[in-house]
């Protein structure tokens, strides 16, 4: 076999390894219900859950509880299926958290009651969608 072929085969082998690990390590978007199922089946892989912060009638975010030492907090997230879940995050409350339109939590269930997020992604209302111009100064 020629060297060129060997190298070619090597490259293909590495590329396949890359594809397989990418698929293997890829996470998935789940709901809290399916995430809890996974936990019960002993699957501890971190998954993504997309949801919104729980709000009261007046649109105020409720259910954020900052721990006494202020370095971590829990909050209530309602996923796209409407399931409400308490989530713990081992970081101080991130900037613009209250305002976020959508929150993606990446993590897994610690036990039946609590979901521990390793990472939080927030989608914030864009300035482009801002319709209420601040009428300051009239």
């Amino acid at each position, binding site marked *: 076999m020629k060297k060129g072929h060997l190298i070619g085969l090597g490259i293909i082998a590495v590329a396949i390894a890359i594809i397989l690990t990418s698929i293997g390590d890829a996470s998935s978007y789940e709901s809290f219900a399916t995430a809890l199922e996974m936990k019960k089946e002993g699957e501890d892989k971190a998954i993504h859950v997309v949801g919104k912060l729980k709000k009261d009638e007046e649109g105020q975010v409720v259910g954020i509880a900052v721990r006494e030492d202020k*370095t971590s907090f829990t909050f209530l997230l309602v996923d796209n299926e409407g399931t409400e879940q308490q989530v713990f995050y*081992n970081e101080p409350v991130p900037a613009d958290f209250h*305002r976020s339109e959508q929150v993606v939590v990446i993590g897994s269930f610690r036990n039946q009651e609590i979901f521990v997020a390793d990472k939080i992604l927030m989608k914030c209302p864009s300035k482009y969608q801002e319709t209420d111009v601040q009428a*300051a100064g009239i």
Partner: protein
Amino acid sequence: MIQTFVGNLGHLTTLVSFVSALITAIAYFNYFKANELDRDSWRRFSRVSFYIHALATSLIAVSLFEIIYNQRYEYFYAYSHSSKALPVHYMISSFWEGQEGAFILWAFWNVVLGLILIHTNKFWEAPVMVVFSLVQAFLISMILGVVIGDLKIGSSPFILLRDATQAPIFDLNPDFIPEDGTGLNPLLQNIWMVIHPPTLFLGYASTLVPFAFLIGGLVTKRYTGWVRPALPWAIFSAMILGMGIIMGAYWAYVTLNFGGYWNWDPVENAVYVPWLILVASIHTMITFKKSATALKTSIVLVILSFILVLYATFLVRSGVLGDASVHSFTDLGLSGQLLLYLLFFMGVAIFLAIRAWKHLPTSAHEASVYSREFWIFLGAMTLGLMSFQVILPTSIPAWNALVESFGGISNMAPPADQIGFYTKFQLWFAVVLALLTSVGQFFWWQKIDRKTLGESLVLPYVVSIILATLVIVLAKVYDWKYIIIVLTGMFTIVANAVILVKLLKKSTFKLAGGSLAHIGLGMILIGIMFSSGYSEVISLNMSGLTYSNSWEDEMNKEHVLLWINKPTQMKDYTVIYRGRQKKVVGVPEYVPAKSLAATGEVNEAIALEGFKDYIKKGDTVQVVLEENDYFKIDYLQNETLQFSLSPMSQYNEGMGGLISSPDSKIYLEKDLYTYVAAMNDFSDPEWKDDEIHEVSPGEQFHVADFVTYFDGVEVMKEIEGLVLEEGDVAVKAKIRVLDYDVEKLLEPTFIIRDNQVGKLPVIDSELGLKISLENILPEQNKFVFKVNQYQKDYVVLKAIVKPYINVLWVGTIVMLFGFTVAMYRRFDEFVKMRDKGIE
């Protein structure tokens, strides 16, 4: 009055720019096709057309900047990206905060590059400029803002606020102009954000140049001739793009609080990948010039690098990444247009490449293991695999979108632990790459066969083993993975340094680019290993608080809560939070916030007390961005102050929360990197219930937890802000509150006028206290104080030690310098050949 002139000028020049780009493309095409007689006039016409395009494009930029600079908030762009409080250099950042501004910047750089190419090329002018003009037409179309029926082409930055929003205020008063804009994202209020985007976009823009030469070469059937003029530009592009990426990383390091310089975020990956491919293409092009192999690979790589830049733009700006990136990007409705742009050039390039494929020269015999081509080819392949490994998972959101657009369901998400996932591949690829550079350089400069290979590599091998051992022992590197990295990094540095010395002895500095860039790579590798692998969070929470549940106790609390004035142990330091500070114009140090009071004007304050020699009591001073608080944190060792750091934070209403910027103590061998993760908000305090104290002068008592002395009262002759009349009685109580080593004098005042009592309480926001003198009981010689508590001021801090991070920064500078030297050499070659009339 709404000023519409600038906006109209902007619209007009956008249209002129778009049309002239199309005309230039057609004109250059005709120039290229024209016979000898007509050539000169076509050339003149094409150039004039491009000059018009250049002027129009520059005017678009000028118009937009005029809107921002003159604070014309009737325009949507200025309103949403700028504000009155912004200094001029941040107005420049406002320019490209919006996507439209970024496209203008990109188009502007293309114009500059186009002008340079017109005047440095003879033969290549026409074919290259056709490609350029077409790219410009696509770019300018992104800001056209033309609506035809349901079809919206581009998003114009020149629309008025009243047309962009449906705010009810405009029904009442169509000529309403907001007083102030909503401001620039505070994270972008950083000097690196002034220079990083232009650099990055120049990098983006310049990938077009080698691509344009390639397309020109394929069309004109100069299948090999395009390499020489394209090569210096490819190196230029890699250098600038690399610089842009590093600046972005540095900006993230000094401004964002995600704790590092690289996070494998999709947005970062999207620029990293084209850069890798670009570097690979440089190597294959150099090989081709030397030995007529690897032409096909070069063509594929040059096309890829250009297309990947467009793909990066698509990923970042189409909103596809929505759920996958910490950077939130909005869809301006340009995704279709961006996709069209991408597919058009991809289609053209693939078509031309396939058509030319069978005419391309290939070398009949296979490269030997002892040839430089072999090693460089391996290097290019490694770079290719590196890019593949990154772009594949980064594209998962795009893949989901694709599946969903065909009605399918895909719930794949990017890897949860991005850093771990990418590192486990990229690290080892980088190790392979580093080894290849050292071996490759020896093959490049020397005739080497089986025998001499061993001989020439012995010296660098031995030297690097010795140096690496020293590093491993001294810096205590005991992890086997990191030991391998130190070894390979050191080998890369030493082997390339040996080549460098040989080159400098024998010939000129001009040839040193390659070895310099590779030395940089070795340093970067070692720097990344230390600063990331051995970074240590020292702000571990030692509060001893236990939680309601056991699992929470197991978690590392990586932040520490610092109450004001309270010493807290943090690894080798005792740290004390000393209060907030402001940055004041003309004062080189930070000024304590408690000595300043806002006047109501933007960024203006009045000094309540003097500060060193800079400010006198009563001075009116200009604050640099009044929202910014700099938290003074003292670091003590053995009870002596070593240094203070002042990480910045602002409570930003618009952004809805805390925006932080780190502050680092930079040593030669490490950085101590700290940032504020949470802070006390006392803009609207919720005071606790009244506490009533009856005390006599000289008595000690406790206010909240503070030991407090009541030193007595003083009858006032005058009170600031109040004219005392005949018969008025004003009394000021002197209360000393002790908080650790700090003693504070609080003086509530009590006034009697016409049997009416007036009370002037004092509020100390640092201690979270409000004290008022409620009553005087003369017969008991007692004074009644009412105390309300809120919360002492605090910050939640994160502190990380990053060892040897400077090796990384120096390494990147060495690498960029290497690129510059190589670029100079290759451009020189091109100029010589051009002047001989060959090109």
